[in-house]
């Protein structure tokens, strides 16, 4: 590709043609603050913090949108630039609900960081602030307009990455607000609660609905037996919350921290991930052999489930009926484990630590109640919330000694660990389905064709006589591409894995902020390293799962399994059913 040479603060740098001034500055190692920019996704010059002086241009320009040109000379630190950036941020602060000491994003807030970096002591501007609209309508996500800086990142991610389009700007000028399309509240629209908007929000205008207080209360309640399960992707990321580099594997420290916090048992969602593979693999085999609906599609990602219910209800028969590993765990905890421990289901309190905001909603679904009158999972914490609780008890996380999960729901395999990465469920299923069907041992269990961050991956795997065609998508706009193919009958796959979030659960909406492409890669590497390091790497070889079938469940897809481990789905509308007049009037304005 053709290169051009640009001068940034006197330093010449060669960058590919088509780069922006921001790209060039980064290549030159010059830091330019940004608030609305997202690499490869959004460059709209909305926040106007990345101002620079371009020789020959009368006004200042935004580096994120301005095309770099051969021979161009750019200044990024002149008094004019610094003063303009400062004024812009002061204006932003004058319309912002500044309460950093009690704010959930304090110390990890991009606005705070930029304000400090620009040396702002206080905003010189006074005046009306936008009214605070707090939307707590869903089980997962809270919107707080008083913190919103209108950077539009959430809008773009929801539209372009997730293909949902639940959020849009409404009204104009100072009254501009980001609102769920057509409606006032998130619960009224086809939002899938994935939390990708939370993940990119630079401030605390979007955050998860916290369950921290509930969990502390349960732990403090002597009448409650509190068990915690941790999802595969959490261990590959939670270290970041404590200053460790992305990709740090901290499973043992995480278990140690949770034990120190007072949970009665620390278990592993990986156990039920293995169980999912047995149930789902068996279901796939029976669909292939019995002429059931194909392609079969995975069902462990609750954001994805809500998405298909809203946008492709006709394809619901394609979904595996398996509950997600989190819900299988909850169901077993309140039945199998309760019986084993001689506890009443209502005395067991199940906490999940998940990389996901949609899991908070999943556990409230009416179907997720296996023992009479009690939910299978009582509270879901995101990775971020878990880290907050660990900080609250003052643990020096990075220096904790490793500890092991408790038995029996803490035993798992490498196949379960890779559930955390896109393609992982597929790979885990292939390892098991292959061996069950062919009754041979796999020579190479690494199905690398389904690994990696690409949006859609396809592979054909020879299983005995049968070439099994599979496809994997991560991020819902990629899922859409596959679903459109399935709808039109073009897709001749046997099995499709869909993960709602880019990169799979490792990039979930509940993971540490920020989550960038680089960080996704690092977390992914940690996950595959963890898999490779484990003695058992196939779900059907998990001894605890085998014991569970022997002692309790009987056989895969058996009567008990059906009752506890499988579920059903609800077609939903893609459009709001009833128009809310006040919200409609926002649109009309």
């Amino acid at each position, binding site marked *: 590709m053709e290169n051009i040479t640009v001068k940034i603060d006197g330093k010449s740098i060669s960058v590919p043609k088509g780069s922006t001034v921001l790209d060039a500055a980064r290549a030159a190692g010059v830091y330019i603050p940004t608030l609305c920019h997202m690499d490869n996704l959004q460059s709209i010059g909305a*926040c*106007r913090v990345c101002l620079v002086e371009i020789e020959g241009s009368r006004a200042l320009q*935004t580096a994120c949108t301005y095309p770099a040109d051969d021979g161009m000379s750019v200044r990024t630190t002149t008094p004019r630039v610094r003063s303009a950036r400062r*004024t*812009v941020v002061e204006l932003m602060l004058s319309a912002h609900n500044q309460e950093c000491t009690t704010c959930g994003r304090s110390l990890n807030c991009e606005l705070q960081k930029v304000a400090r970096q620009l040396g702002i002591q206080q905003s010189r501007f006074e005046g009306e602030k936008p009214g605070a609209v707090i939307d707590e309508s869903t089980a997962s996500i809270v919107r707080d307009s008083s913190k919103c800086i*209108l950077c539009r990142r959430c809008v773009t991610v929801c539209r372009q990455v997730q293909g949902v389009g639940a959020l849009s700007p409404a009204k104009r*000028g*100072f009254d501009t607000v980001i609102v769920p399309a057509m409606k006032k509240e998130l619960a009224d629209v086809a939002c899938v609660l994935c939390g990708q908007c939370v993940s990119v929000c630079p401030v605390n205008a979007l955050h998860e609905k916290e369950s921290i207080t509930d969990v502390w209360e349960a732990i403090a309640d002597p009448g409650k037996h509190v068990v915690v399960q941790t999802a595969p992707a959490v261990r590959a990321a939670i270290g970041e919350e404590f200053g460790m580099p992305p990709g740090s594997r901290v499973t043992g420290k995480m278990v140690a921290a949770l034990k120190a916090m007072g949970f009665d048992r620390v278990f592993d969602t990986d156990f039920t991930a293995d169980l999912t593979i047995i149930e789902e693999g068996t279901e796939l085999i029976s669909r292939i052999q019995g002429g059931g609906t194909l392609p079969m599609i995975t069902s462990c990602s609750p954001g994805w489930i809500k998405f298909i219910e809203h946008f492709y209800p006709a394809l619901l028969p394609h979904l595996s009926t398996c509950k997600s590993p989190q819900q299988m765990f909850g169901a077993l905890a309140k039945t199998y484990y309760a019986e084993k421990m001689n506890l009443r289901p209502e005395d067991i309190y199940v906490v999940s630590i998940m990389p996901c905001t949609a899991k908070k909603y999943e556990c409230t679904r009416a179907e997720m109640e296996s023992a009479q009158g009690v939910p299978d999972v009582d509270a879901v914490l995101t990775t971020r919330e878990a880290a907050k609780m660990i900080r609250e008890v003052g643990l020096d996380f990075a220096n904790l000694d490793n500890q092991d999960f408790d038995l029996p729901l803490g035993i798992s395999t490498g196949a379960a660990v890779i559930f955390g990465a896109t393609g992982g469920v597929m790979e885990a299923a292939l390892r098991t389905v292959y061996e069950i069907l062919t009754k041979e041992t796999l020579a190479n269990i690494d199905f690398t064709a389904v690994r990696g961050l690409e949006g859609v991956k396809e592979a054909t795997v020879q299983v005995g006589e049968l070439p099994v065609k599979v496809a994997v998508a991560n991020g819902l706009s990629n899922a859409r591409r596959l679903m459109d193919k399935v709808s039109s009958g073009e897709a001749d796959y046997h099995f499709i894995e869909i993960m709602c979030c880019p990169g799979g659960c490792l990039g979930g909406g509940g993971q540490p902020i920020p989550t960038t492409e680089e960080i996704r890669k690092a977390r992914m590497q940690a996950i595959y390293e963890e898999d490779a390091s484990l003695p058992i790497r196939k779900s059907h070889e998990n001894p605890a799962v085998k014991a569970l079938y022997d002692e309790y469940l009987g056989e895969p897809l058996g009567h008990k399994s059906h009752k506890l481990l499988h579920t059903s789905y609800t077609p939903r509308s893609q459009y709001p059913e009833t128009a809310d007049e006040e919200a409609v009037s926002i649109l009309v304005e």
Partner: protein
Amino acid sequence: MAVTRREVRLCNCRESITTGYSGAPVILRHAETPVFNFDTLKRVLESADRTVICRAACQSALTERGGSSSVGEVWQAAQAAGTVICNAAGFEPGCFKERVLLETSPFRLIEALAIAGYAADAREGIIFLPQQGGMPERIQSVIAEAQKEGFLGRNIQNSGFNFNIRVFAGTGGYICREESALRQLMQGSRAEPMPENGEPPIIHTIEALFQAAEIVENGASPERDTRLFSVSGDVLYPGLYEAPYGSTLRELIFRFAGGMADGGRLKAALVGGPGGICAGAPDIDRRLESKDLPPGSGAITVLSQSRCMVDTVQGIAAFFKDESCGLCTPCRVGTKRLHEVLSWWKSGAGDAADLKLVQGLGEVMQDTCGCSVGRSAANIFMTSLGHFYNEYQMHLAQKSCPANVCRPESKEI
């Protein structure tokens, strides 16, 4: 075919095109109005090829907003443009040339747009009308008539040229003067200026289209280099005037618009609309041209001594606060703060030190906003400081309004 239609052409007259900008009926003061029968379009289709027309229009003095290319150059650069857009939504307080031309000369507009379409090798013309005063039904019926008579549609006048025009009546507001905002709106998105990939669309103002058509018809000549000026405010005959480019403010106010109304004395003139320049009485002999007093949209709002500057500027600030699209920070918050602070000053709050802070805010808005709307929102305030600094000072330090418009003593905040 004897079609009798009264249409205005530019460069035909040196007098007012109309008086009474605020309402119909329109009285045309210049001598005769030609009979309209798409002569120019016919001639273009019969004899000229695309290149010839483009070259002719290159001499049009009007350049498109924000650009440096003449209308003809824009056409020349177009490679099978597909669409040419006439943006008739430039309405702003004090500017009514769009409305007058739409009202008086819809056929000429159709003709001018068809010529542009032919020159730019386009298939479709779109007339973007503002929500208020755009008269979509009237324009629609004129389009239908032109279609019936074979001046729009397939194979126009057996020339092989296919061209149709449709009306797009938008709700986008003032921001639609920004081309990329208009494009967003036409694509069904919110009207806001988003960076765009690909070829920019061909968008002309109505005045530029008229002028280009005129030059294609008659050729360019220095005395045909005119502009439309909307003169309003405290003058005897507010109206739309066509005057030579480079006329002085004095000529516009005193020769064309009949001088000050009600025996008032000139205090200031806002040249170029709410985002223009505040000229004081000493500027009266300056020329309305880009190297002296840039006329911008051609709106000239004349203020007599009975007006208060702080009050006037506060009104303009209110306009921008309401019209900011809300995309970028310095405009979204800056226009709000500017309006708030001027309102405080009017009511007697604030002190002299504020002035410096707000001046700094104005500078940053001019320097950093994302589009011409925000960049010009503080212009009148900033330029008014030159002639009327003392008037601000009196509001702030002495809590008095020399024009007796504000009530700075009723300090309340």
